[in-house]
């Protein structure tokens, strides 16, 4: 058991659902985060950053020495509806935030069924909305980040305006990085206005949607296809009339499928239909047509090797989002390592030299 100094232990907190660790802390400021990380770097302790715990198995993190929750860093620092920008702490629960934004008919385009997930967690895990085909992924919404590096530096990049090419785009590098370039403390996000009406149309096949240039989303869930439309009442009525299907008012977003094993299958957009045909017999799935983002779940991993081999043969990936730890030991959560692995390793070494933030959680065991 490592001894922890009082300025760290004063941050101790009870964290519901978090993995067992020597110490669980909930910092109240970026400086607190820096203290914890600096201490961990000095002592060589693994830190798992804890948001809502919804993707805690993603990337098969090793057992942590310290669990650091961002729950006390969840304030909205500024929100200017006329600028469509928001600055918010990483620990803000997405559900609460989106509810608040909806009060002004705006959205941050986070995942629609977020559960307990937080702003920082969704960004760090690279989670995207089902609307991403029309409104782009999480990466495209991040204007500025403040992160704390493994060695305790507080680094800001980007800016608080919707258009900005000032220096390297480090803020976007935080997406899907699992904190390896620094724990996200706060972000500035580009918001999107929400039009007054939405309609969900059930159709026979994704091919029918070609009658509409840019729908909000086309989702196929276990063989059933729904088209999501939004706009003024006039627009959504007219568009749904063009589709041969049953329409229902409102946007009724589905949750990702559940099971003991959860997967993210990523394929070239045009192969989405082929991928779902491939999964149909074995796995439950929710596929975003036009994007190639397929969320799947199963009760065992029997088909995984075959599906991964197919995905990788077409330039895609089968990634394990959640699975029993024993399985992740024998089946790499990410699959074949990506290109530029050496660059990734050297970049991370500049920001987390002792490799204490979620070590081993990235592809290639980084």
């Amino acid at each position, binding site marked *: 058991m490592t001894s922890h100094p*009082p300025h760290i232990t004063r941050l101790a907190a009870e964290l519901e659902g978090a993995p067992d660790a020597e110490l669980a802390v909930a910092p109240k400021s970026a400086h607190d985060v820096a203290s914890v990380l600096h201490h961990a770097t000095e002592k060589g302790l693994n830190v798992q950053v804890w948001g809502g715990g919804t993707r805690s198995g993603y990337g098969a993190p090793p057992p942590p020495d310290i669990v650091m929750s961002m729950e006390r860093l969840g304030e909205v620092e500024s929100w200017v509806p006329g600028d469509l920008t928001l600055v918010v702490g990483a620990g803000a629960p997405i559900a609460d935030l989106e509810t608040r934004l909806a009060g002004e008919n705006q959205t941050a385009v986070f995942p629609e069924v977020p559960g307990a997930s937080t702003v920082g967690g969704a960004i760090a895990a690279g989670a995207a909305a089902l609307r991403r085909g029309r409104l782009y992924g999480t990466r495209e919404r991040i204007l500025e980040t403040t992160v704390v590096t493994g060695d305790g530096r507080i680094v800001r990049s980007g800016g608080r305006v919707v258009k900005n090419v000032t220096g390297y785009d480090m803020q976007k590098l935080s997406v899907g990085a699992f904190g390896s370039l620094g724990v996200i403390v706060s972000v500035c996000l580009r918001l999107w206005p929400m039009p007054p009406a939405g309609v969900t149309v059930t159709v026979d096949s994704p091919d029918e949607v070609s009658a509409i240039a840019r729908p909000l989303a086309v989702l196929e869930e276990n063989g059933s296809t729904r088209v999501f439309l939004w706009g003024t009442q006039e627009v959504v009525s007219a568009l749904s009339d063009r589709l041969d299907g049953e329409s229902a008012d409102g946007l009724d977003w589905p949750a990702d499928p559940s099971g003991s094993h959860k997967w993210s299958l990523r394929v070239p957009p045009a192969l989405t239909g082929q991928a779902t045909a491939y999964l149909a017999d074995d796995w439950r799935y929710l596929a975003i047509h036009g994007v190639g983002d397929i969320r799947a779940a199963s009760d065992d991993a029997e088909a995984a090797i075959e599906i991964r081999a197919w995905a990788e043969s077409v330039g895609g990936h089968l990634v394990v989002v959640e699975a029993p730890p024993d399985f992740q030991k024998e089946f790499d959560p990410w699959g074949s390592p990506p290109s530029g692995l050496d660059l990734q390793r050297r970049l991370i070494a500049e920001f987390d030299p002792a490799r204490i933030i979620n070590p081993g959680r990235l592809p290639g065991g980084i």
Partner: protein
Amino acid sequence: MTLLADLRQALGKENVLEEPLELHIYSKDASLIRGEATFVVFPQSAEQVATVVQIAASHSVPIVARGAGTGLTAGASPTEGGIVLTTTALNSVEIDPDNRTAWVGAGVINLDLSAAAAPFGLHFAPDPSSQSACTIGGNVANNSGGAHTLSEGSTTSHVLGLEVVLVDGEIVVLGGLAPDSPGLDLKGLIVGSEGTLGIVTRVLVRLLPIEPEVRTLLLDFPTMEGAVTTVSEIIAAGMVPAALELMDQRMTTAVENWLHAGLPTDAAAVLLAEVIGELEGVDSQAGQIGEIGRANDARDVQVATTEEHRALLWKGRKSAFGAMAQLAPDYYLHDAVVPRTKLVETMKTIYEIADRYDLTLLNVFHAGDGNVHPLIAFDASEPGINERVHKAGDEIVTFCLKVGGALSGEHGIGLEKRDLMRMAFTEIDLDAQARLKEVFDPTGLFNPRKVLPDGSRCFDFGGVRREVPEGAWV
């Protein structure tokens, strides 16, 4: 062998320029800052680019990548000497209509890409005003925007993959057709890095369907304030038009004298708005924009009724910089961003600064994004004018940062704004950026001394305690 002999052997004599006049032409981009090219090369493939990189490294000579040279911040000026690597021969275009993407050579001209995609009902969204000349490689280097960035974002949102030559000559492909490549998003880091991290040879771009309907409106206002308020109220009403572009009276006058695009020259400001989408939506949105404009005292609201009319309105906007030649021999174009809600006070301040320095200043800008482009027309031969132009420019940029804005919206930092980076970032922030550069290019081979001010990496961290307040330790 000498550098010249190595380059000629690798690329053929015809692809290496060495005559003084040729070198002079390639020693400058569209900024006011000239460098000095040692040689200019035209590699024909990624493999040849890799060979040039290895040759440059072995001779310790820097490489400055160049597309069409339309950049405005000296990003492509070889200010430290070295090889100017021109990408124009990397001009392949492979459209993949099923995936709505294309693999495009870095040297392909922006507008040529959209022209090649049009038969498939697709287009490339980023549309800088220089799109008939600028290259995709240059767009990637500067994360270029354009009039239609408002609804679709800058170049970075449309790049799915990159083929890049790294400093050791390795050719890597980053990203790809499938979404969310596992690991760090290195391609996203290279977009906007101004040729300082690697040389991009091919780009996998996202193509968007051409929207079925488009409505282009021209609103003219007796005051700039009315025009700017209209922009804010359009956004506040929940609309994100494809474009919201503003020109002031001095600008419309200059354009009309040159092009006769039908712009009202007696208006203080004209707003060009464009809405795209399905038939059922565009007319009601256009109507709503017209109403908001009239409520802010717009005198007239024109809706382009034909494609010719629309093209003429856009030609007036996109040719604004070309119209400057009649006013003065030189111009200095700024690029800064302010929060949209600060546009009214920003415009007032910009005019006030120009008046104070007795300068001719015109405005044409992407109002929807808060991306201002004050343009100062001057004659560089007038004694003392250069100093006034630069002082006014610094005051404008300082003001934009003070109200929460950014140094650059779409032109980049290059050399011109490099030293202003200290106004936007702390030493620690700049040190972090310098570390990124060092990981990719430890010897400073690629476009040296651009983007980051000298000494960015010198920050003495001195242990974490500097960052942690004293009180935290008790």
